[in-house]
């Protein structure tokens, strides 16, 4: 297979994902409305109740809505990762996954291309939200919008590969809602998205420990630091490591020799 074949297939996979996304306007609106509710309603209430002390990467006092914005961006990406995995389960049930998996290209490449397609869709959502947040008064460092892009790509890949891994373990579409509740909400709440870790430690030591082991925390911190043109190396290490781990497990799960897909993409009859 030539390089051009790989390139065309990659573009084709991304293009299909974008087409599907553009046709689902409700999905785009939901992706924006959910974090906006947090930003406009939740953050407005907490702004008065919760003071944020000066903690890295911030060099001055910030308002609560500025603090939770990176967490909301990570939430958008987490939802998109789960949405993408839902779409993989749907494709598997509807059969269109077979078209992808019988392509004469390595399985890992097809999965990575699919993962990137989801990341690109998540970036559209993230930057649309950042724009709306700007008009709601959330101002971040101007260069940060660009500097955060690599961090957002990496975090998008981590959530996408987690979603892909989940999609390989889910037998039926109906089971997916439960999985989403067990993944999205615990990950979001037990993280530094809504409160800084030091505040969490003051409240509950065991919850603080959970937050430390939650990859979502590190995704939020990676984005937060990137917006202020800094690199949180621990966050970078954790997010990169988790991405590699989740992706490797997904490739294994979808591998025709060793994976667990044959129990699901297998045979309907005959």
């Amino acid at each position, binding site marked *: 297979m030539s390089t051009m074949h790989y390139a065309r297939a990659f573009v084709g996979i991304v293009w299909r994902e974008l087409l599907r996304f553009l046709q689902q306007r409700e999905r785009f609106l939901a992706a924006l409305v959910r974090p906006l509710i947090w930003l406009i309603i939740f953050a407005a209430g907490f702004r008065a109740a919760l003071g944020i002390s000066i903690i890295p990467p911030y060099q001055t006092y910030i308002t609560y809505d500025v603090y939770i914005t990176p967490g909301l961006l990570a939430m958008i990406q987490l939802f998109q990762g789960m949405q993408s995995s839902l779409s993989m389960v749907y494709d598997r049930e509807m*059969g269109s996954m*077979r078209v992808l998996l*019988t392509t004469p*290209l390595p399985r890992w490449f097809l999965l990575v291309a699919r993962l990137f397609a989801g990341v690109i869709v998540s970036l559209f959502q993230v930057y649309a939200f950042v724009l709306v947040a700007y008009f709601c008064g959330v101002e971040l460092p101007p260069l940060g919008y660009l500097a955060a892009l690599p961090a957002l790509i990496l975090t998008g890949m981590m959530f996408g590969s987690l979603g892909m891994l989940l999609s390989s373990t889910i037998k039926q579409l109906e089971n997916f809602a439960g999985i989403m509740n067990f993944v999205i909400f615990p990950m979001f709440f037990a993280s530094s998205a809504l409160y800084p870790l030091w505040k969490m430690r003051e409240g509950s030591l065991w919850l603080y420990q959970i937050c430390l082991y939650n990859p979502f925390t590190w995704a939020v911190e990676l984005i937060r630091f990137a917006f202020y043109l800094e690199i949180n190396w621990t966050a970078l290490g954790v997010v990169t490591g988790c991405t590699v781990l989740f992706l490797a497990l997904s490739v294994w799960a979808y591998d*025709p020799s060793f994976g667990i897909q*044959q129990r699901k*993409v297998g045979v*309907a009859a*005959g």
Partner: protein
Amino acid sequence: MQKQAGKNGSSETPVLTVENVSYWYGTKQALDDVSFKVFPGRVTALLGPNGAGKSTLFSLITRLFDAPEGRIEICGKSAAQWGAKALAPLGVVFQQPTLDLDLTVKQNLRYFAALRGLNRKDADRRMLAALNALDMAERIGERVRALNGGHRRRVEIARGLLHDPKLLLLDEPTIGLDDPTRRAIVRHVHALAKSENIGVLWATHLFDEVEPDDALLVIDRGKIVARGDAKDVVAETGARDLGGAFRLLIGGEADEDVAA
């Protein structure tokens, strides 16, 4: 790569070789030492009741999962050795519909063409040719959701042919279609096999989709129980027609599982 004397005595190279393939789901054996070849320009019908192992066999040939035992070669390339690359000369129409309902016919075919590495210009040209051959060209801009079952099937067949495959796998492609549409598809695929010199493996449980000159494999409980030209298989069993031959071969279960 093995060569065999073809039907007309000429030397032909198989486009598909399945040799000693067995497969288990846990402790349940789905395929038991299955061997056969498919040659270019011919339709090979794989006839068997539901649950006989046809779809399992297709899943192994298309490498949805690997065969732990036996050898599968597509145009001389072993799937175990060449991996996904071995699938390049393969066109597939799965039993389950696989088109994206929210995309148009054109978008579906372009997506597939991209996966097969075709450039946009080539893809559009082939797309029109394939759809024209199946009387579907005027529906190219419509969403698949708006098409009926027969038209969707035609689009799937057009998609399977887009990259000029040497081997076309059809897994019960006419399921759920009305009789005239079914017959039209059977005629079209048989004509295509001859005109384009494509080897076709057609899994079915419907006798009237098998023509007397087709190569026939009868599969039951994961085993090939009869093989040869369809008319010869009928003659050998002493039955009046393929339905009768089939009932004799699989021990009278055809009434329930197989329709004429």
